């Protein structure tokens, strides 16, 4: 690996000193694009050059752009959705630095007429990328009125909810652990609160949400199915502001402002649920001593040292606490800290260095006298990333970098006091290191053909110390080998090619194709039908191999009516290797030999995704439809025949409508319909020791009833012009009170023991909500 580092260093040095020969009479235009009111940098704003030259640039995650052009006069237009386009004529006679400040277009109820690039979705070579507008997140109706990024994402084609009210999601046949969820570059391991009903992302703190369903650029790696890249707000650089909301379940507050005006800013955003505040009023101490809440805290600060150097520090701390007085305690949560340094080596070489810490842990306490114990489990990452962006010419934009992640997984430390019958046990920690390097080029081949292609070389090594076991096919231990600290137990090296191309058929239509290979070295063990905070992560080892996915996708993209409507149709096929399932009767809790109970197999997923969106106007919204299949093949399961994975849904339809009825009222509605989950039902029964036992013949061979639901919401904005701006949000979840199946159970009928019966449990019927939001 050091060889790769040395090579990269060499490339960096070369690039920062030499200029390509073709650029002799070419100059670089570079700078930042920011919001006029808050000074927040804008991600993904487009800078276009008019005239014969097909050129331009898009701002990166830090609002920086860089474009090359020959000597001459140009008309520039800078645009970003929801902002007024800036046009400017400029003479390029030397390398030029130019910052743009865009003014937010508040008249979203009017059709924005603009001739500039609102057709990024057509011309960009990037495939499988969906962006979620934070405004959309705030308008779409949600359970309990809690705005939620992950639940809004689930309304897009190819992205499916993992269950009723659940923030877990499946992307193109991937499981919930196959999504790489990044918050300011830090991986988040358990992105949900309260057993999945809320995501850990407080939408107040979020600036940009991008999700890659396929065709991930080479800078992303580590998970099979998708990348969800969430960027936090930097904080207002101009003035101090506060905003928040009071809801049925929780309240939120965000404070932001400049550290030094126009130089640096901070943002702190918090959220806490207060169900337990009601418990405290209970006269019965057995109730008032119970706890049940979660909180989130997002904090970020940035400071621009000079023209070429900016520092960012961001953190997330969230925790769920659940406790039953004197008998039981359970808490879990994530912490992430990201320190970043942006540096401009030259006006065409942008560098970002990130140092990231991420920790997920849970604690379970049993407080009863004779059985007391405490379980501590954690997964801790130290992550160093070096990324470069180099604007080679107006035809080539390069991205390259290195990444090293050190993982420590503590599966469980069991402690107890003297009077307890539980023994203290310390399960061995597992350490591993992931190293990766990548190179990616965005190439404008011709006016109509664009390419993003790249390579990612990734390695994983399981490190000592530890007693590493080997198992035979039946799960019996065949050997135990002791390793010392720092010794390499097992290493894997993988090459991940990525390519995505677009060919523009006309100014408003294109076809795109992509091939992607993704590798996953860390795996979530969950044999339950839902995710749980105690789900265990394991790494590759001598027994567990890296998961591999190869995906091909192709699609047709078309804008109508002056880009007012956007339509896309994509098909994909995905092959997956080294997928993991369990033998029946596997106990994942405190099991040092969990690898003995794993089974390995293949997966395949394919589907069609249709998407039609109206992007502007009084009324906007979208229709997303997915037809798909997700199957798995394992030697020891279902007699070695293909079976449907739990994330398989044949049909999945989402309708979203947002209507702005005037300056103050906004109405919105969501309708979802999907095929029921693939489940295993009995095909017979028998008796053991006088009790009824069910006989299963086919894994996931049945379907739960179809799921559908209609939600509505209304937002009333306060009168404009006041210092304190406030708004009310009203919502109704599941308007027609559909009794969707959360689980289906089989049991002896308690009223007639000679019969068995089937019961269906519904989690959420009709649920109204109200939230009051404010800003000053």
């Amino acid at each position, binding site marked *: 690996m050091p060889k790769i580092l040395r090579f990269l260093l060499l490339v960096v040095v070369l690039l920062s000193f030499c200029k390509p020969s073709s650029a002799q009479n070419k100059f670089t235009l570079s700078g930042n694009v920011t919001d006029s009111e808050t000074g927040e940098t804008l991600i993904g704003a487009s800078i276009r050059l008019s005239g014969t030259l097909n050129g331009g640039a898009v701002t990166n995650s830090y609002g920086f752009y860089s474009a090359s052009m020959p000597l001459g006069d140009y008309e520039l237009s800078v645009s970003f959705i929801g902002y007024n386009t800036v046009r400017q004529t400029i003479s390029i006679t030397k390398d030029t630095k130019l910052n743009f400040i865009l003014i937010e277009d508040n008249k979203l109820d009017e059709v924005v007429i603009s001739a500039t690039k609102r057709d990024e979705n057509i011309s960009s070579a990037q495939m499988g990328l969906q962006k979620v507008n934070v405004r959309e997140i705030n308008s779409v109706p949600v359970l309990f009125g809690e705005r939620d990024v992950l639940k809004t994402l689930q309304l897009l084609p190819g992205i499916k909810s993992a269950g009723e009210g659940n923030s877990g999601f499946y992307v193109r046949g991937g499981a919930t652990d196959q999504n790489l969820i990044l918050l300011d570059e830090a991986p988040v391991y358990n992105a949900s609160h309260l057993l999945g009903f809320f995501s850990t992302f407080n939408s107040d703190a979020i600036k940009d949400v991008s999700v890659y369903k396929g065709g991930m650029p080479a800078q992303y790696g580590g998970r099979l199915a998708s990348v969800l890249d969430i960027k936090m707000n930097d904080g207002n650089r101009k003035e101090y502001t506060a905003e928040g909301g009071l809801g049925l379940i929780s309240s939120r507050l965000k404070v932001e402002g400049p550290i030094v005006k126009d130089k640096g800013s901070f943002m702190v955003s918090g959220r806490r649920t207060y169900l337990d505040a009601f418990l405290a009023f209970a006269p019965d101490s057995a109730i008032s001593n119970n706890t049940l809440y979660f909180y989130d805290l997002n904090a970020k600060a940035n400071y621009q040292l000079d023209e070429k150097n900016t520092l960012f520090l961001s953190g997330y701390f969230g925790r769920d606490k659940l406790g039953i007085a004197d008998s039981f305690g359970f808490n879990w949560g994530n912490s992430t800290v990201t320190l970043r340094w942006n540096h401009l080596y030259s006006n065409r070489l942008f560098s970002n260095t990130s140092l990231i810490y991420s920790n997920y842990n849970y604690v379970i306490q049993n407080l009863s006298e004779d059985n007391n114990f405490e379980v501590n489990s954690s997964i801790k990452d130290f992550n160093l990333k070096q990324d470069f962006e180099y604007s080679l010419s107006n035809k080539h934009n390069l991205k390259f970098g290195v990444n090293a992640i050190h993982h420590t997984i503590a599966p469980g430390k069991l402690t107890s006091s003297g009077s307890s019958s539980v023994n203290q046990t310390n399960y061995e920690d597992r350490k591993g290191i992931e190293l990766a390097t990548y190179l990616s080029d965005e190439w404008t081949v011709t006016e109509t053909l664009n390419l993003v292609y790249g390579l990612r070389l990734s390695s994983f090594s399981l490190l000592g110390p530890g007693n590493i076991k080997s198992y035979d096919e039946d799960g019996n231990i065949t050997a135990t080998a002791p390793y010392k600290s720092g010794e390499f137990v097992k290493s894997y090296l993988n090459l991940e090619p990525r390519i995505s191309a677009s060919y523009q058929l006309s100014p408003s239509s294109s076809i795109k194709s992509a091939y992607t290979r993704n590798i996953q070295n860390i795996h979530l063990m969950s044999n339950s*039908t839902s995710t*749980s905070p105690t789900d265990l992560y394991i790494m590759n080892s001598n027994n567990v191999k890296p998961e591999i996915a190869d995906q091909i996708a192709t699609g047709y993209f078309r804008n109508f009516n002056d880009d007012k409507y956007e339509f896309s149709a994509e098909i994909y096929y995905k092959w997956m290797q080294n997928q993991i399932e369990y033998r029946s009767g596997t106990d994942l809790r405190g099991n040092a030999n969990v690898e003995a109970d794993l089974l390995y197999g293949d997966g395949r997923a394919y589907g069609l995704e249709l998407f039609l969106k109206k992007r502007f106007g009084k009324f906007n919204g979208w229709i997303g439809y997915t037809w798909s299949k997700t199957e798995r093949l394992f030697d020891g399961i279902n007699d070695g025949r293909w079976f449907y994975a739990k994330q398989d849904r044949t049909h999945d339809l989402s309708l979203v409508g947002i209507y702005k009825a005037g300056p103050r009222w906004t109405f919105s509605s969501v309708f979802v319909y999907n095929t029921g989950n693939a489940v295993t039902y009995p095909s017979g029964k028998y008796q053991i020791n*006088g*009790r009824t036992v069910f006989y299963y013949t086919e894994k996931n061979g049945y379907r739960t009833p179809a799921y559908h639901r209609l939600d509505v919401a209304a937002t009333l904005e306060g009168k404009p012009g006041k210092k304190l701006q406030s708004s009310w949000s009203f919502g109704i979840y599941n308007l027609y009170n559909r009794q969707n199946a959360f689980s289906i159970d089989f049991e002896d009928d308690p009223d007639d023991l000679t019969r068995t019966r089937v019961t269906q*449990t519904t989690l959420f019927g009709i649920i109204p909500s109200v939230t009051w939001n404010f800003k000053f």
Partner: protein
Amino acid sequence: MRLTYTFLTGLFAAVLLLTSCEKIITLELDNAGAAVVIDAGLSDQGEIQVVRLSKTYDFTQPNKFNGASGATVVLTSNTGNVVNYTEVEPGIYNSPRIRGRSGVKYTLTVNLEGKTYIATSTMPDKVHIDSLTFKDYNFFGEKSRFVDVNYLDPRGAPNYYRYILRVKGKIEEDVVSEDRFNDGNEVANTIFYDLSDLERDDQIDVEFLCIDRNVYRYFYSLSQNMGGGGPPIAPSNPPSNFSNGALGVFSAYTSSRRTATIPD
């Protein structure tokens, strides 16, 4: 105040997680061909040992023991003993009065309709049940009462236990545990069957069995299917120790028992 509070928590519980509701539904289920089920045990008590041989039947039929007749059932041990079972009623095969011994490996061979099903089980060392004690809990104002099974786990060797709880003579709970977390200790294992509806002087009875690892695994898997031990998992047939695809299990076990009377 109390009423207000009860209402408030009730409301919140209703609004939050417990808005759930249950209803009875009808499903069209496939009817699989009949499979062979063997439910066989061998205890350390000098008694008639029973093998129950049956076939699976359709889900919609009334619950019954669907006995399979005409099989030959033979028990052998690695100490050279051979015991033949005789069918006493359809599907019920009895041994003469015999006693299994700890440390001996037993093999049960069942021959039915030309197919042979074989399982082995080693009788573990015996651990005696010491006593039963009642324990009261209060979950969010809801009182519940459970029974603890007390015993001393032998240090060193892995041990697997099965608990059969009978309330007023009827089997209400059948659970297993292992000593992974409490090897060598005085153990008080709680059986999470709520006894708070019982009245004073009602009788409960716990049969405490020491079983081997495969049998433990079988019953653990069975309890997972029924939602025991955490969130529901995708169900599957528990791993049988019989060959040739038979369902069920053969367990050589030791047994001890305690009864208790519900206090106030």
